[in-house]
C-alpha cells in the first residue's frame, strides 16, 4: 500500500491553525500546516487586543501573530504557503487537492477562518479601496481630520470605530438596533467618545461619489426616513462568512455555512475536525479559537492511534 503523506493536515494559519500546529508538532505528529496567504488570519488586521490573557498592556494583532508564529517555528512546524482547492473524504485515507499537487492524510483540522461580510449596497464594490474598507488598521490613518462612517454594532465594529477616532475628526456609527452588541467595556468607551455619533435603528443603503467616497445614504428603520451624509470613508463590520468553499458535501454545515462539530471538535466526517471562526460556535474570539484547536489535536491524536495500526 502506498505510504500516506501525513498524519495530520491543518488548513489555515490563524490563531486556531497555529495552535493546532503547536500541539501537533509537540506531539511529534507528521504534520503540515497550509496557509494560503500569510499566517495570522483576521488577527493581522486587528489593531489592538485586550482580551487575550497574558498581555496585561494589550498587544497589537500583528505582534501577537509574530509571537504565535515564532512559537510554532521553535518546534519546527512544517508550514507551507498553499491553498486547499478541494478534498476527497470518502475513504479513511483522505485526499486534499492543493494548487500544485494532491496530498494524502489520515486526519485533517480545518481552521480556515472567515472573512468580512459585505452589505451588498450600491457603491460598496465600486468604492472598495477608494474609501470603502473593512480594515481600520490598514486605512484609518488616510482619514486624518476627515469624517467617516462605520457600520455594525459588534465587538469589531466598536473596537475599530474607537481606533478610527485617533485619526478621523468624526465617526458616524450606524447600527440597525437601538443598542450595541459589543462587550460592555467597549460600549462604555464608545458611548463616552465625543467623536462618535451614533445613528441607531439605521441601515446604510448606498455609497456615492465621483472617483472616491463622498457621501452615504442612511435609512432610519423606525421612521423610514432616508438622509444623505457627507463622509470621506465608510468602514463595514457587519459580521463574517466562513472560508469553506473547498469543503465537500460530506462535511455538515449550519444554516450560515459554518462547520458543525461535536464537543471533540469532530465534524460529521471521522478524522476531520474544525476549529476557530470557521466552525459553528456562539462566540468567535482568539481565546476560543486556540481552545478549539487544542481539543481538535487531542481528538485527532486519539483517532490516529486507532487508525494507524
Amino acid at each position: 500500500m502506498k505510504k500516506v503523506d501525513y498524519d495530520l493536515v491543518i488548513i489555515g494559519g490563524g490563531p486556531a491553525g497555529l495552535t493546532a500546529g503547536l500541539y501537533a508538532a509537540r506531539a511529534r505528529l507528521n504534520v503540515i500546516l497550509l496557509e494560503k496567504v500569510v499566517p495570522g488570519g483576521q488577527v493581522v488586521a486587528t489593531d489592538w487586543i485586550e482580551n487575550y490573557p497574558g498581555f496585561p498592556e494589550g498587544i497589537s494583532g500583528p505582534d501577537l501573530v509574530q509571537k504565535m508564529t515564532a512559537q510554532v517555528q521553535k518546534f519546527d512546524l512544517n508550514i507551507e504557503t498553499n491553498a486547499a482547492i478541494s478534498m476527497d473524504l470518502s475513504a479513511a485515507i483522505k485526499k486534499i487537492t492543493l494548487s500544485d499537487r494532491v496530498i494524502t492524510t489520515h486526519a485533517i483540522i480545518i481552521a480556515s477562518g472567515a472573512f468580512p461580510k459585505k452589505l451588498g449596497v450600491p457603491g460598496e464594490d465600486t468604492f472598495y479601496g477608494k474609501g470603502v474598507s473593512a480594515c481600520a488598521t490598514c486605512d484609518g490613518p488616510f482619514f486624518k481630520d476627515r469624517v467617516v462612517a462605520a457600520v455594525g454594532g459588534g465587538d469589531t465594529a466598536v473596537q475599530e470605530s474607537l481606533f478610527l477616532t485617533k485619526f478621523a475628526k468624526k465617526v458616524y456609527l450606524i447600527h440597525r438596533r437601538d443598542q450595541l452588541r459589543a462587550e460592555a467595556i467597549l460600549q462604555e468607551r464608545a458611548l463616552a467618545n465625543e467623536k462618535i455619533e451614533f445613528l441607531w435603528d439605521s441601515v446604510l443603503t448606498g455609497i456615492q461619489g465621483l472617483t472616491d467616497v463622498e457621501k452615504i445614504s442612511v435609512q432610519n428603520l423606525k421612521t423610514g426616513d432616508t438622509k444623505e451624509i457627507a463622509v470621506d470613508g465608510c468602514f463595514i463590520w457587519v459580521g463574517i462568512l466562513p472560508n469553506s468553499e473547498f469543503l465537500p458535501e460530506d462535511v455538515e454545515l449550519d444554516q450560515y455555512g459554518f462547520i458543525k462539530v461535536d464537543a471533540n471538535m469532530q465534524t460529521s466526517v471521522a478524522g476531520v475536525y474544525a476549529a476557530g471562526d470557521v466552525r459553528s460556535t456562539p462566540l468567535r474570539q482568539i481565546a476560543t479559537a486556540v481552545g478549539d484547536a487544542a481539543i481538535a489535536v487531542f481528538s485527532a491524536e486519539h483517532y490516529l492511534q486507532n487508525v494507524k495500526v
Partner: protein
Amino acid sequence: MAEGVLEIEDSNFEAEVLQSEKPVLVDFWAPWCGPCRAIAPVVEELAGTFGDKIKFTKCNVDDNPVAPGKFGIKSIPTLILFNGGDIVDKVIGIVAKSKLEEMLNKV
C-alpha cells in the same frame, strides 16, 4: 542587482518607477499597517523569483504623500505594477502569493 526591494521616495518616484526601462512593482505600505508587514516577506520572496525582469520597490506612504495621492491610494497594502509609466495592474489588500504571481506574469 536582481534581488531585493528598493525603497523609493516621492523625489525619485518619477525616475525609478515611471521612467524605468524594466516593469516596476510598487508596494505602497506604512509602518502602522499590520497587513503591510504581513505581506512584505511575500513581496521579498517574489523579488527573488521575478527580480530579473521586474524591478521591486516599496514606498512608505507616511513619508511620501505625493505618489500615493497621485494614484488615489486610500487603502494599503496596495501593489501596483507599472510598465512604461502606465499601470498594468493593481492589487489592494492581502492576497495569495499565486495571485501576485499571476499579476507579475502579465509583463
